[in-house]
């Protein structure tokens, strides 16, 4: 309903916009939302039933719905697998939505919290916390992670915009790569100096093992609020994605929208990094894929990205455990396996257009 309205409004003002608006496919989006949700539930169920301990599916079922805290197998499901799998889903939502907002707001097809230094910034903040406040409760850790993501983002955008000719997507990615390298090097330096390499190794490799209910409880309100905020902003983000001029023409005050969007991105990236570490590329792959499927309207892109992001991480985590049992393959490496070729493809395509 509301979609057709915006189409009308847009067509009145700009014929170019019309074609873009028309390429939105609400039916595909609905299909993704419903189908993706079903697939996600299936993926979560599958992931919860698979693990180091051999537990039958019926036991898994009863552990989830009739939890008996005295049974060892129920404890494994409840204390280890459920939080891990739900954590993976939540992290997927975070990275994907953050990526979608960044790509929409900055009109940068290469925007991703990993590529633009947010993840490295958050990782750096975590390294500082481990070094100076060991045993800091997760509640505060996550706040530092937000700050770190903010630090990474502002450094990257600051340096990127210092260049003559302003911020181009590729310049930003270069600044992001350089700053990420710097921040990771600093984190490693801290790890070496304070001998906390073991604590940090997990954050480098990325992985949802060891996610606790406490972490999820603390993370959930932030993520829920941020995603809700993203959906509320989605209409404005669509306008921004058409360019500042167009957005202005449509009567959008881009300043407050960009500020709110940035805050949401920092919260999402920071929260995700504080749980799984610097897993990149989710925020790059998923929004592109979603845009291909549902068109350019961010009111569809954001919720669909959330679902698909969750799906990607849940299945990647499952794969990470199945590749070489009983050892776990780092989640970050596994996603990068898909992410790097995808990045090359996008940057080549964009390079031609620039």
């Amino acid at each position, binding site marked *: 309903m509301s979609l057709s309205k915006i189409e009308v409004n847009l067509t009145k003002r700009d014929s170019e916009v019309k074609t873009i608006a028309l390429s939105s496919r609400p039916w595909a989006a609905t299909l993704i939302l419903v189908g993706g949700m079903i697939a996600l539930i299936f993926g979560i169920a599958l992931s919860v039933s698979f693990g180091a*301990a051999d537990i039958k599916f019926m036991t898994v079922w009863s552990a989830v719905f009739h939890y008996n805290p005295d049974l*060892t197998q129920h*404890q494994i499901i409840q*204390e280890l697998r459920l939080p891990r799998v739900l954590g993976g889903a939540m992290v997927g939502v975070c990275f994907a939505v953050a990526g979608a907002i960044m790509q929409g707001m900055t009109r940068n097809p290469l925007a991703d919290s990993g590529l633009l230094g947010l993840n490295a910034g958050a990782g750096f903040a975590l390294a500082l916390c481990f070094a100076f406040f060991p045993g800091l409760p997760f509640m505060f850790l996550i706040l530092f992670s937000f700050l770190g993501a903010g630090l990474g983002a502002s450094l990257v955008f600051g340096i990127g915009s210092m260049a003559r000719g302003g911020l181009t997507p590729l310049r930003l990615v270069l600044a992001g790569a350089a700053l990420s390298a710097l921040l990771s090097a600093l984190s490693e330096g801290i790890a070496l100096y304070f001998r906390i390499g073991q604590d940090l190794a997990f954050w480098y490799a990325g992985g949802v093992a*060891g996610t606790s209910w406490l972490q999820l409880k603390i993370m959930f309100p932030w993520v829920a609020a941020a995603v809700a905020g993203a959906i509320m902003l989605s209409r404005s983000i669509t306008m921004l994605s058409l360019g500042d001029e167009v957005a202005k023409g449509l009567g959008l005050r881009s300043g407050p929208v960009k500020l709110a969007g940035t805050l949401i991105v920092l919260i999402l990236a920071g929260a995700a990094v504080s749980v799984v570490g610097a897993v990149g590329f989710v925020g790059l792959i998923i929004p592109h894929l979603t845009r291909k499927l549902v068109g350019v309207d961010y009111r569809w892109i954001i919720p669909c990205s959330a679902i698909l992001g969750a799906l990607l991480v849940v299945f990647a985590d499952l794969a990470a455990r199945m590749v070489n049992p009983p050892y*776990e393959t780092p989640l970050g490496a596994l996603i990068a396996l898909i992410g790097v070729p995808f990045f090359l493809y996008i940057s080549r395509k964009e390079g031609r257009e620039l």
Partner: protein
Amino acid sequence: MHFIKRPVYKSMKAKKGHRTLNRFSLLLVFMLIAALVSACGNKAISEDTTKAAAAQTNQQATDPESETDPKAAQAIKIKHGFGETEVPLHPKRVAVFGLEDIMLSLEAPMVYAYDFIGYYLDDEIQKLNIPVSGSADFKPNLEAILQTNPDLIIVQQYSIDQKGYDELSKIAPTIAFAPDDWKSSIIEIGKALGLEDKAHSVIQANEEELKKAKEQIVQAVGADKTVAYIRPSDKDLQVFFPSFNLVYKELGLLPYQGIAELQQKTKDDWGINLSLEDLPSITADYIFAIYGGSIDTEDAFQKEVSASKAIEELKLWKSIPAVKEDHVFKVSSRHWMSSGPIAESREVDDVVNAVTGKH
């Protein structure tokens, strides 16, 4: 003869630094002579010197070549991790990297050692007032070792590769030993230093200590208690195997049942990385748990312990038999992960105190 020839040949092969190395071999000869002259004045090893001297005389008598150069008899061949090397008998300036435990046990003097604040032998090494590596970085610093003018370098095998060994050999004859079996290392090092008897007595003292500890433990809790040696974190769980630590074998405690099964799952002989989901399989009566790496300071150990609190919140952890009995002992990986008679002795103390209830 051999001893002098070898470094020259090596330097020719290396081409670069030919002259410097020649000077080195000269220096080495000088030091060798100095060592010979002063060795007799050393009371601690005088007994061995006489023995060695007697052996040399025999050798000289049977070996016609050695008559042309008496210095050849002053060298001894030592088998080690990178082959067989001729080292001077009774070296005076021994630089050590990573095998300080053995050197301290032999009461052998060192001119250089691996040490830093927090190293488990830091107190003992500080007393010696010698140059030390000063950091936890487990890679020999060639320059620092060179500055101490060693006539023998004893190095932990895993701290270098063949290239690193070759470089150390340019400074002085170098022998390398793996930490896995300190008993055979101490014998070889004892041979090189002319302290073979002392080496045997260290081993004997260690065996007596183990025997006594075993008796104490068996007397206190019986001979059928099982033990597990693990490293938990809030992400995973490492279980160490019997080949890796004496706690399973020598102290009257048995490896817990699940270990054999775990050993079949991996080719590694040190242990295995498990998921926290495997916590319930740890059925041992006693658990010794380390946190962090072998180089950590006491502070770092406390940090690691406090950072691992999350695992203790799990019901899964709380329902482990040893946890219920309050038989989980957090021990410092500083000496539990190190190898040598001193590390072992401290470890044995930990186990005896824990099991017999004298925390």
